[in-house]
């Protein structure tokens, strides 16, 4: 898909969303959902970048999200770092962790990568709840319940004033997804496409699989970390409950709905999934069942996710050669 078309879809989506407060600005519940949509859109897009484009089946996105949220909260609560700076530091810290996780992963086959990255997710919970976490200031199993909001020139962005916070989130989401778009359409993106087609072929072009994959680990964990940090400052509290499976599954649904490797589909995927989730909420227990069935059906019938509607036939993922 061309840069222009991707940018148009993104711009259109964000533009429409930007207008939302005009209609629903005074409804807290919906504003909150919209902000969460923006947050998830970034996380899902990062996941798509690493999985769909770089072809690394990473399951660590929620873990990176939590690491970002926790580290920023700890920086600002325990060390008194201003929130904006803490977010940046949290992003860098998460990127560092991302690289450390990426290093052993890059020599492994698909299900192994998935396992090692998911292992980070699995070990994070006992780590944060245990003595090590407590020593770092994670608040153990209680979590951190007093995270200061983001303040810029004395103006604070928190759940108390949702409309400005919404625009802050929008800007952040636009910035993050713009970075992803540029990456996909840059030399990097080409390199990944080459890598996906054939690693040997890419090697012959002088593309170092290792370098690029590590860079994508760093970048996606940086962005995920930053948005995770924003989440913490926005909600004002975090707990290890983020790491339960519910969020993980929801994010996965977003990627599937948006189309794997079909950026900017994940942005739409995030909105559609969250809205569907809320619309299905009256079903109670049946909701999760329906969501599961939806994933199965979508994977089978709509391999390109909602982006399938936008694609020209030639761009659609044809059955393999």
């Amino acid at each position: 898909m061309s840069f222009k078309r991707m940018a148009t879809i993104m711009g259109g989506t964000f533009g429409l969303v930007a207008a939302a407060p005009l209609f629903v600005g005074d409804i807290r519940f919906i504003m909150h959902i919209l902000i969460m949509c923006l947050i998830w859109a970034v996380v899902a897009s990062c996941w798509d970048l690493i999985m769909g484009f770089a072809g690394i089946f990473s399951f660590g996105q929620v873990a990176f999200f939590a690491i970002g949220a926790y580290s920023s909260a700890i920086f600002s609560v325990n060390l008194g770092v201003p929130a904006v700076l803490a977010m940046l530091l949290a992003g860098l810290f998460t990127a560092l962790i991302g690289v450390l996780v990426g290093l052993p992963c890059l020599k492994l086959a698909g299900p192994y990568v998935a396992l090692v990255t998911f292992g980070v997710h699995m070990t994070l919970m006992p780590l944060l709840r245990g003595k090590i976490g407590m020593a770092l200031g994670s608040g153990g199993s209680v979590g951190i319940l007093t995270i200061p909001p983001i303040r810029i020139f004395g103006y604070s962005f928190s759940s108390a004033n949702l409309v400005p916070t919404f625009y802050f989130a929008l800007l952040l989401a636009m910035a993050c997804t713009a970075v992803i778009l540029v990456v996909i359409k840059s030399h990097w993106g080409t390199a990944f496409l080459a890598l996906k087609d054939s690693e040997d072929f890419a090697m012959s072009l002088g593309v170092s699989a290792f370098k690029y994959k590590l860079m994508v680990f760093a970048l996606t964990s940086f962005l995920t970390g930053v948005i995770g940090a924003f989440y913490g400052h926005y909600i004002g509290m975090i707990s290890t409950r983020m790491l339960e499976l519910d969020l993980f599954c929801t994010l996965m649904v977003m990627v599937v709905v948006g189309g794997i490797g079909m950026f900017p589909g994940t942005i739409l995927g995030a909105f559609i999934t969250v809205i569907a989730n809320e619309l299905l909420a009256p079903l109670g227990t049946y909701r999760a069942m329906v969501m599961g069935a939806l994933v199965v059906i979508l994977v089978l019938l709509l391999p390109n996710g909602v982006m399938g509607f936008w694609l020209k036939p030639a761009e659609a993922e044809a059955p393999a050669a």
Partner: protein
Amino acid sequence: MHFMHISEDTILLLYEIVDVIISGLTNGSVYALMAVGLTLIYGVTKAFNFAYGSFFNLGGYCAWILIGIVGLAGGYFSIFLAVVPVLFVVGYLLEKVLVAPLRKYEDWENKVMMMTLGLALFMDNLYVVVFGGRVKSLPPILEGTLEIGQLVFTYLDITIFFLSIGGILLFGWLLNNTRIGMAVKAVAQNPEGARIVGIPKERIFAATFAISTVMVGFGGILLSQKYFISPMSGGAIMVKSWVITAFGGMGSIRGGLYAAFIIGMMEAFVGWGFGMSYGMIALFILLLTTLVVRPQGLMGKS
């Protein structure tokens, strides 16, 4: 001279270590049963089944219905007899309807992972709707305990140990000594070669999926007697099996078997020496170091 004198403390410590070893062996046999089906399906079809844990519970719930609601007579023998075909058919159909159509895509492995994750979400919540959120249990296949000196074994543990090891050995024998078993192996080693000699690859894929469903469901019936059937436990079982198969080398049944016992033992000793909460962390350290040294796992082929 206290030359040959062994203090009472030492004897107690020895008993304790034997106890821990037994605990490790019990863990191991349970894990082996869980992991072999998963490694089989990956080895043959290269598909990774995330709904694996949900099939574990499927076996448990089938048995629970037969015992609690239908009131099937004949004990566990007739239950196995009744449930195994059901699991086989379910597994076969799921492969045909849900997995096989995905094979035509280039990144079908990823699509299968996604699809089976969705399937797991669906099945687990279906269990909640149908059976409620509370755990269910099955009566033990054999009651009572066996005491040898200081050591005590429940007959249930012994049964689980022998049935799971026996089941795996039987499975291995069938794989090597029957026509269909050889065909499964052939597809695993060289799918194109298998097609050339006239092995219906698609049918073998479906059959493998079905066999692995039977194995994990069988494990579910067996282990639900010791632990429980809990609708949401599929994820944890899946992850455990996944770690074990990865550690052993995906696709290697022997590797899975070794890994199950090594990990079972390690957990028992870590729990004993450091505390239970370190089990998971130790597990991943072990896995990571193994994968750094041998990216294909203990016995896997690169």
